[in-house]
């Protein structure tokens, strides 16, 4: 089965779970006075779930006739290993690590680390350029966000800013 139909199957499962919640569990906690209303919090989700299940089935069962001359794929997912898959996965891992470390490590170390590691993964080895560029960019963004815009962004790890 082609990837688009596998995806339609996954979406169908999600829609069925969503529809189950909308039809059978959502209204259980509804206060009695709301039950007299013509529209309930579950009304719109019910309509959406039915329509989405039908649309997912439409794609899954292949009712739609594809284009006569399908456009060439940007990236052929069947030959993903021939692309820079390792780099892409490493960058996704770095993004997740950045999300987890942003608060405990502080904005400046986490950002410099992310940018240096990201560029390193992509093949940049000139640390004497990389470090000042990333440190400068992190500093400017921190100043803009924290000082100008007033959005809290701790620059250093908690144990440094709180005095240990």
């Amino acid at each position, binding site marked *: 089965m082609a990837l688009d139909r596998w995806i339609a199957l996954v979406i169908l499962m999600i829609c069925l779970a969503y529809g189950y919640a909308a039809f059978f569990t959502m209204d259980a906690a509804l206060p009695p006075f709301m039950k007299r209303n013509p529209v309930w919090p579950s009304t719109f989700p019910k309509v959406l779930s039915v329509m989405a299940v039908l649309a997912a089935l439409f794609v899954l069962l292949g009712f739609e006739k594809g284009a006569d001359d399908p456009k060439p794929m940007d*990236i052929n997912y069947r030959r993903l290993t021939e692309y820079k898959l390792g780099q892409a996965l490493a960058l996704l891992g770095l993004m997740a690590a950045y999300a987890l470390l942003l608060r405990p490590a502080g904005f400046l170390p986490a950002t410099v680390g992310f940018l240096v590691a*990201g560029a390193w993964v992509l093949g940049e080895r000139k640390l004497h350029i990389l470090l000042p560029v990333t440190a400068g960019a992190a500093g400017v963004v921190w100043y803009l966000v924290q000082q100008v815009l007033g959005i809290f962004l701790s620059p250093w790890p908690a144990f440094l800013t709180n005095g240990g």
Partner: protein
Amino acid sequence: MLEGIMVGLATAFSLTNLLMVIGGCLIGTFIGMLPGLGPMSIIAIMIPVAISIGDPSAALILLAGVYYGAIFGGSTSSILINAPGVASTVATSFDGYPLARQGKAGKALTVAAIASFSGGSIGAVLLMIFAPALATVALLFHSAEYFALMVVGLSAIAAFAGSGQVGKALLMTLLGLIMATVGEGALFNMPRFTMGIMDLQSGFGFITLAMAMFALPEAMYLVLDPSRSSSGSGSGEIKDLRITKAEAKAIAPVIGRQSIQGFLIGVLPGAGATIASFLGYAVERNIAPKEEQEQFGKGSLKGLAAPESANNAACTGSFVPLLTLGIPGSGTTAILLGALIALNVSPGPRLMVDEPQIFWAVIISMYLGNLILLILNLPLIPYIAKVLAVPRNYLIPFILFFTLMGAYIGQNNATELLILVGLGICATVLRFADYPLAPLLIGFILGRMLEDNFARSMQLYDGLGFILERPMTLGLLGLALILVVLPSYRARRARLRAGGAADAD
């Protein structure tokens, strides 16, 4: 009116107010380029500065300049790195980014600047002439009409349903609508589909979703296939800044139509620049000849000019209910209303009579602001577009960093970053299978407004009676149907004709 205009001209052209417009436009443009900071947050940040000025005309002129500048800055990041940080510039990225990838970043930015200028200027002229009359018409729109208008906005998905993709585009729209139901709704005020996760209580963040759908998959594609980054204007030389006479002739009617349509949508409280841009894109795509229709989404100048004119005209239009009725038509104008009240100005029908210098100065400064944006930004385009010439090893980590920062600033929550990565992976996989991602975002943006207006209409009419009882609603729903069906019908007819011709051979 003429006397008022003269007063407005004198106020707007004072040295202080000219500096306010220039300053506001520059601040708005630069901060607006950062994904994650929309006009609403920038204006909110600028309010204390504006209030400290003391003079209401100068303060409002500064804030209006910031507003336009932010919208313009938002379209720049949409075009250059496919990161629309504001909902109203999502449609700009549909054709703006493909143009940048074809090495026409300079041309795309020029068209965006001209379309924005024209949209804003035409809007300002219309505001000057029709403000009081339009405010009365806007009051005729009730939740039923808004619901129908959202449905018309959703018909923009037809623009993404290429051959063999109608089902996929529809499925993506429905998925976007489903995602919009997660969290507490405005009308029911109870958490839905949060699976007990506190961070989902307020639903998915728009910026997180926009970054996950556009910026992150594009960055992943650049990583997976390095040859993509060497195409286009990656060489650093920005050519093709000018638009030809033929191109100008082609986009001129689009700009004219969409400035008027965008302005009228902006006048309606609650509709705003986002709906105007999607609708503008959908309408232009649907009325374009078949061969031009296929260019939409692949780098069509018309597809870029339409949302850019419409969103700027809608921004101007949203000042109609604010200045004439005291009703904020959008989140941004709600913040502006707060600023006006803080400055001891009461907007409403008496504003034009009691404080004409404020009313007219703001309108004149809108025109001036658009002109200044054009004058300031056109010479800067070659330098702005050089972003694309940054080496790939630096550009990609920085795109990812700004994507993450956009989501973080929008929600001030580190969990949002993990949601962004998760959604970004899903979006990349969806893109592998050629699912259009724009309809999902359109569904998400319009979903909550659609449900709120639908629920209000259902409560008011005790059922679905509002569809038949309100002719304007029925008319708008009919228009939506035409916008969805017409392209399919034309495609089918073209296929049949081609089939007939082949048989004849």
